[in-house]
């Protein structure tokens, strides 16, 4: 079906979007949620399993205290109330990657409720209200083999790997987010980014979207101004920050195109496709399974001691928003400059580079300049560019020591990004170093003057601008390893001309 999509500006002029996000975060505990199996990513299939996470008859779950501590810290960081008493519940449905054919989750008694997270979008603060944060176990993974696509269609066999089954999973659900208008896609992205930063700061998960340790489902609906909320769709498989933004935008456009011709939005799950940037329908929610939730009788209720919760709250680290404000002040940046640092995802990188001994200005220059350009070109996140804050600090140290000039430093940085080694190693291996020995430089200058008598005469006669030709000649013989400014002064001095 090909439909001409309306322009985004038109859509937001006519409709009001309501969005909502459900985010799953795999906790980085050492062991699984209800057994002692390790949680490391990867591993040969079905090697990190035991009777409990395989759901063998007779096995019983025992809740992981570290996971409960982690979710309480997440809840506190998201300004939630922590339940004094709550229970796990069974969510019943048949699926082969779910060993017991029910998932231990939480239903009407989540451990954290009613919080919020403030995010910055376009210089404005948007408060995202959090409905609930609850704890559950992850499922295994089904692999379909024998087909061309890796999907179930056309596959000859389906294999299940239960290594992931039972890894603790935190689900964070927002309340419906209204009133964001044209900014809805950006708000969605900013929320997930902020949430990721908060959780990373807490150190409870590595929150890597590409490895699935942070997964996001996006709910979207459109309504006419003043009208009731529209029917929502839930978009799954949104695996990067950029995709969060694109998924909301794409779904807004699609829904508008349906509503514009008098159509009706089906309440359904849709799948986002990274390649095309659009969504396609999954299973319909209108025929949704009845999960027959009931309190998990194999586990005792969770009743965290209020004194313990208070301790955890007092021990929370400085959260990203507060932290950023402090950095902005320390670095002396305007709101606009800080925003560009944030947009580039460079806060932590600059902070670490400064911590390694570089001035904030120099650190910012490298990360937002050369390195951001390279990251954009290769389509990777800045943090994954291949240069570390320590290496950038080392590079700047070489510049400050007068060993590299700006142009050489950029060449060295390219080598760093390409994985050739540390800045010092690359400087040596590529033979790049500012010639600071004035004796050798003077000899090179004298040689250039002797070889270019006509130019030398021009300069002597007052045409100082001609010095550039001699600078170029010396640079050529020294293979660029001279500081241009020093060189210019030296040439004029040897010719007895005032600069």
């Amino acid at each position, binding site marked *: 079906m090909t439909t001409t999509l309306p322009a985004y500006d038109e859509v937001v002029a006519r409709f009001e979007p309501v969005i909502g996000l459900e985010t799953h975060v795999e906790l980085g505990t050492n062991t699984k949620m209800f057994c002692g199996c390790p949680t490391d990513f990867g591993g040969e299939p079905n090697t990190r399993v035991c*009777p409990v996470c*395989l*759901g*063998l*008859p*007779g*096995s*019983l*779950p*025992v*809740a992981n205290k570290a996971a409960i501590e982690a979710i309480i810290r997440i809840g506190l960081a998201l300004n939630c109330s922590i339940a004094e008493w709550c229970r796990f519940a*069974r969510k*019943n449905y*048949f699926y*082969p990657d779910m*060993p*017991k*054919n*029910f998932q231990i989750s939480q239903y009407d008694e989540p451990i954290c409720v009613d919080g919020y997270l403030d995010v910055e979008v376009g210089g404005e603060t948007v408060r995202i209200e959090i409905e609930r944060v609850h704890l559950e176990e992850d499922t295994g993974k089904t692999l379909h083999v024998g087909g061309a696509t890796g999907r179930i269609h056309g596959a000859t066999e*389906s294999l*299940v790997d239960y290594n992931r089954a039972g890894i603790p999973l935190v689900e964070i659900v927002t309340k419906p987010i209204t009133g964001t208008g044209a900014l809805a896609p950006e708000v969605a992205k900013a929320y997930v980014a902020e949430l990721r930063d908060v959780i990373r700061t807490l150190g409870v998960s590595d929150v890597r979207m590409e490895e699935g340790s942070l997964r996001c489902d996006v709910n979207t609906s459109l309504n006419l101004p003043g009208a009731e909320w529209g029917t929502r769709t839930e978009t799954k498989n949104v695996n990067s920050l950029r995709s969060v933004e694109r998924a909301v935008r794409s779904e807004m456009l699609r829904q508008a195109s349906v509503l514009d011709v008098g159509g009706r939005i089906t309440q359904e799950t849709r799948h986002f496709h990274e390649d095309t940037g659009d969504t396609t329908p999954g299973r319909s929610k209108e025929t949704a399974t*009845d999960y*027959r*939730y*009931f309190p998990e*009788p*194999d*586990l*005792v209720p969770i009743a965290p001691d209020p004194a313990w919760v208070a301790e955890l709250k007092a021990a929370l680290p400085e959260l990203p928003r507060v932290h950023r404000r402090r950095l902005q002040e320390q670095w002396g940046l305007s709101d606009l400059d800080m925003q560009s640092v944030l947009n580039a995802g460079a806060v932590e990188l600059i902070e670490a580079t400064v911590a390694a001994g570089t001035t904030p200005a120099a650190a910012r220059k490298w990360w937002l300049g050369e390195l951001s350009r390279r990251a954009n070109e290769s389509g990777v996140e800045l943090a994954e560019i291949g240069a570390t804050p320590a290496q950038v600090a080392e590079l700047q140290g070489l510049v400050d020591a007068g060993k590299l000039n700006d142009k050489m430093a950029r060449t060295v940085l390219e080598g760093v990004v390409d994985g050739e080694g540390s800045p010092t190693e690359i400087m040596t291996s590529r033979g790049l170093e500012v010639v600071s020995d004035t004796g050798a430089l003077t000899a090179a200058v004298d040689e250039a003057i002797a070889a270019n008598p006509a130019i030398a005469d021009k300069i002597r006669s007052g045409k100082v601008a001609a010095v550039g030709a001699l600078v170029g000649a010396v640079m050529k013989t020294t293979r660029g390893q001279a500081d241009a400014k020093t060189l210019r002064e030296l040439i004029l001095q040897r010719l007895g001309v005032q600069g």
Partner: protein
Amino acid sequence: MSEMTGMSDFTRMTATEIASLVAGGETSAVEVTQAHLDRIAAVDDRVHAFLHVDTEGALAAARAVDERRAAGEVLGPLAGVPVAVKDVLATRGVPTTVGSKILEGWRPPYDATIVQRLREAGTVMLGKTNMDEFAMGSSTEYSAYGPTHNPWDLSRIPGGSGGGSAAALAAYEAPLAIGSDTGGSIRQPGAVTGTVGAKPTYGGTSRYGLVAFSSSLDTPGPCARNVLDAALLHQVIGGHDPMDSTSIPQPVPDVVAAARLGATGDLTGVRLGIVSEFVGEGAEPGVMAAFRESVDALTKMGADVVEVSCPTFAYALPAYYLIAPSECSSNLARFDGVRFGLRVGDDGNRSLEEVMSLTREAGFGPEVKRRIMIGTYALSSGYYDAYYGQAQKVRTLITRDFNAAFERVDALISPTTPSVAFPMGARTADPYQMYLADLYTIPTNLYGGPGISVPCGLSEGLPVGLQVMAPTMADDRMYRVAAALESAVGTFTPPAL
């Protein structure tokens, strides 16, 4: 067939006697084990108490005990004593079917905590005993592998679901057995086979490795031919298990000392309450007669016996038949043919969903299917509050009745079951009649406290049991009362097989 009844017949001894002979070097665990294996070989084709006899494993375990004794190790109080284990408990490498076709051939890769404790205690596991499929039933007729016969009268049921364990004791195939009690599955078979069956406090014995029927009710416990043996077994298997979240982190009450105290026949100062609701017209006259005589005996030993009304107990059966099926509908979902057990229809052309359906269709028997359907319905959106939610409220009220009663008395007593062993086939066509067999035992499960059935007499030649119910974690009280009654009425021996 001639029967050995002399002093050298280990199968007629109590567990205490056997352990003492083994510890003293007067016999070997191997000899004792072989005697029981021989007895099984001689009678079990008629009784069918066992689903699997682990001859090699039993003899190896017995040899290990003999070696430890020879090496001068001090053995535990039940070392060298054979034990039969209900097929509901996972036994490493030994088939575990739960009486169901759906687990036929499954050999668990792990031991249930109780099985591990039995091994550590030096008991010798003879094999796995028959049961109603997934412990759902009161006659063992719902076993997918054929019924067990009551040694008192082979044409009658041995009770259920743990009819195999109870029959193994009554047929002298084992001196000790393990059962599990969700609504009476230890106590009711104990009553109708003239043996002792104790349901410990919920959480007092570990459920880890017990194939779940109803998680909030299932309680594994000891079965024996006398109260002291049951207490000794209780002591060995009981106590906190970190693998079971619902396990109580407290030591086992001293049930052995309580049984010894009770055996002195003195109940002075003990207050007993007869549950008014359970001595009405529901029980058979013969059962009531034996019960009344036992009450007289208890009174003579010094007990202060009164009647206590527990009006909400009338709602226990319907509440149970919502809670247990609800939990079972979820617990039994894992039997889908994907990871273990039976798989039907996997011919390369059928979808996974079809294979799951065909497997469950073929693997579960009618009673299991009935309860899965009832439970699925009761938990459904829109019905939850009216059924499961309401049943949980009833459960709370029943607990209140127990708590109120235990403010007045130390323990409650009643007949264990309204009737003696009924003829095989008499109730299979009428599930409700079958369910009534557990009428007196179910309230204890809903409350979570301990209950024990002890033989108290005969009615028309068939055993009658008396039930003692105590407050949670006061298991010792019921052993004291049961042992006192046993000292007064004696034990009961079935006719020779």
